[in-house]
């Protein structure tokens, strides 16, 4: 029997939890992953033996050859579906796509997706820089000494050249993230900043200043997925997966077909089509923000503004807390935390909190329909989710 090709509304997020984030030295990365699993089981009101699927990503600070299997062993569960996924910052939502498919196809019923890493405490600053830059091509890119900020600076410089985007507009992304973070007690960086603070911060790789770059953090998070038919049996209001789509255009930035338009166009088109919505229907968005120019490209490629208009869109305050499309309401990778591949898990758990109306002082008035986007590599692997409340289903 052929499976229903659309996942729309068939699976829900029924649990979400974050660990402590920032500099966390009392737990190593894989212990943080176990901590995230225990916390999400508590949130979803589940016992370990009710979990029959586990999806993780590897840790850079303490890699394991068979990560998901090792984590299942560590917490004492014996799943029917167990897999580690590696797609850089796109990992988290690619994992969700696969886990949702596994549930829809009857492979398993209750999947925990858990990810954590300790880039700040588990590696030296040089080590963290090197492990992240190892995404560069070993023969044809890495010999030239580019850092990850340098790879993204190539994108920023091309966008500035093609569309007239300015350093001030890039800085506005960081300023907005900090405005959101100042409302989130869990965010690492909460002190408000202005455009001038970003422009005065140390230049890392022109045109990216220190404050155009995301944090280097420890931390983890987890969610629980279950079939929509069971979703109301859990303690919290379900958050339904209404759309999901991926796009993979290249791995190495020197092979990108375009520096300024990404495969977020493809992932977004697929997710919107499944959900039956367009960008104008979305109440808020959580967009991968490892560096400020990435948010500008994503806003354009996901259709929130015209191509080339991302800079003015941000500078006009559209993504700020009072803007027409609040983006990264937890503070994002720029101001909340960024432990590497697990980074966008926090965008996912934040979207769940907003849709559940549990976001406290930063709760949005309209929070029924969210777009959540992750990307990994150097604008390489993209996955877009559309999430909605019971009312938006």
């Amino acid at each position, binding site marked *: 029997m052929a499976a229903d090709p659309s996942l729309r509304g068939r699976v829900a997020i029924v649990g979400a939890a974050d660990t402590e984030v920032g500099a966390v030295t009392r737990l190593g990365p894989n212990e943080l992953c176990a901590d995230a699993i225990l916390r999400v089981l508590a949130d979803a009101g589940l016992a370990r033996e009710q979990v029959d699927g586990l999806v993780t990503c590897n840790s850079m600070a303490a890699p394991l050859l068979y990560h998901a299997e090792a984590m299942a062993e560590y917490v004492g569960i014996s799943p029917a579906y167990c897999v580690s996924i590696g797609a850089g910052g796109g990992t988290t939502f690619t994992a969700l796509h696969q886990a949702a498919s596994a549930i829809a196809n009857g492979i398993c019923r209750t999947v925990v997706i858990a990810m954590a890493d300790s880039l700040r405490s588990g590696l030296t600053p040089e080590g963290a*820089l090197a492990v992240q*830059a*190892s995404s560069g091509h*070993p023969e044809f890119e890495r010999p030239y*000494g580019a850092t990850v900020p340098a790879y993204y600076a190539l994108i920023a410089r091309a966008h500035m050249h093609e569309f007239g985007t300015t350093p001030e507009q890039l800085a506005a992304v960081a300023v907005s993230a900090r405005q959101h973070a100042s409302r989130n007690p869990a965010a690492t960086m909460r002190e408000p900043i202005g455009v001038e603070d970003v422009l005065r911060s140390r230049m890392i*790789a022109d045109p990216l200043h220190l404050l155009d770059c995301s944090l280097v953090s420890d931390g983890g998070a987890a969610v629980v997925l279950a079939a929509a038919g069971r979703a109301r049996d859990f303690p919290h209001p379900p958050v339904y997966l209404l759309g999901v789509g991926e796009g993979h255009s290249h791995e190495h930035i020197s092979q990108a077909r375009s520096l300024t338009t990404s495969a977020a166009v493809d992932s977004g088109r697929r997710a919107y089509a499944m959900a039956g919505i367009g960008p104008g229907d979305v109440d808020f968005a959580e967009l991968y923000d490892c560096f400020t120019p990435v948010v500008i490209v994503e806003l354009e490629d996901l259709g929130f503004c015209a191509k080339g208009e991302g800079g003015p869109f941000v500078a006009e305050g559209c993504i700020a807390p009072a803007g027409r499309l609040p983006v990264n309401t937890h503070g994002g990778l720029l101001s909340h935390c960024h432990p590497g591949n697990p980074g966008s898990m926090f965008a996912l758990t934040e979207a769940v909190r907003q849709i559940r109306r549990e976001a406290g002082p930063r709760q949005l008035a309209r929070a029924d329909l969210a777009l959540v986007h992750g990307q990994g590599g150097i604008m390489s692997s993209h996955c877009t989710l559309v999430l909605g409340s019971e009312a938006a289903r």
Partner: protein
Amino acid sequence: MSPAAPANPAAAAVAAVAAEYWAACRRHELVIQRCRGCGAHQFYPRILCASCASRSLDWVRASGRGTVASYTVVRRAISEAFAARVPYVVALVALAEGPTMMSEVVGCAAESVRIGLPVEVVFDDLPDGVTLPKFRPA
């Protein structure tokens, strides 16, 4: 996953198909692949033409000329090995033949590099026997 980014290609696992490329660099020649089927040039070297999937590829000498497609001035070095060279310019160079390669722009002030700058290849013989192609303003 390998935790360490090697500072030079001698430390990387050099794929067999690229041996001709690195040998040519040691002779101070920039070579790229051209497809016998569709005529497309490509970089990096592969066992197939990424345009038409033909496995018939020739090595041809590139003109060594191109333009800067994008660039950045790296001010925070990746490692100790690069620290003494800060600031250095990492660039994407669009070769006259079509393909784009990552490289470094040398022989000029970092601040003078621009998108569209015409450049030509030069070769940097590293102490470990590897020769890296770099570019200078043409």
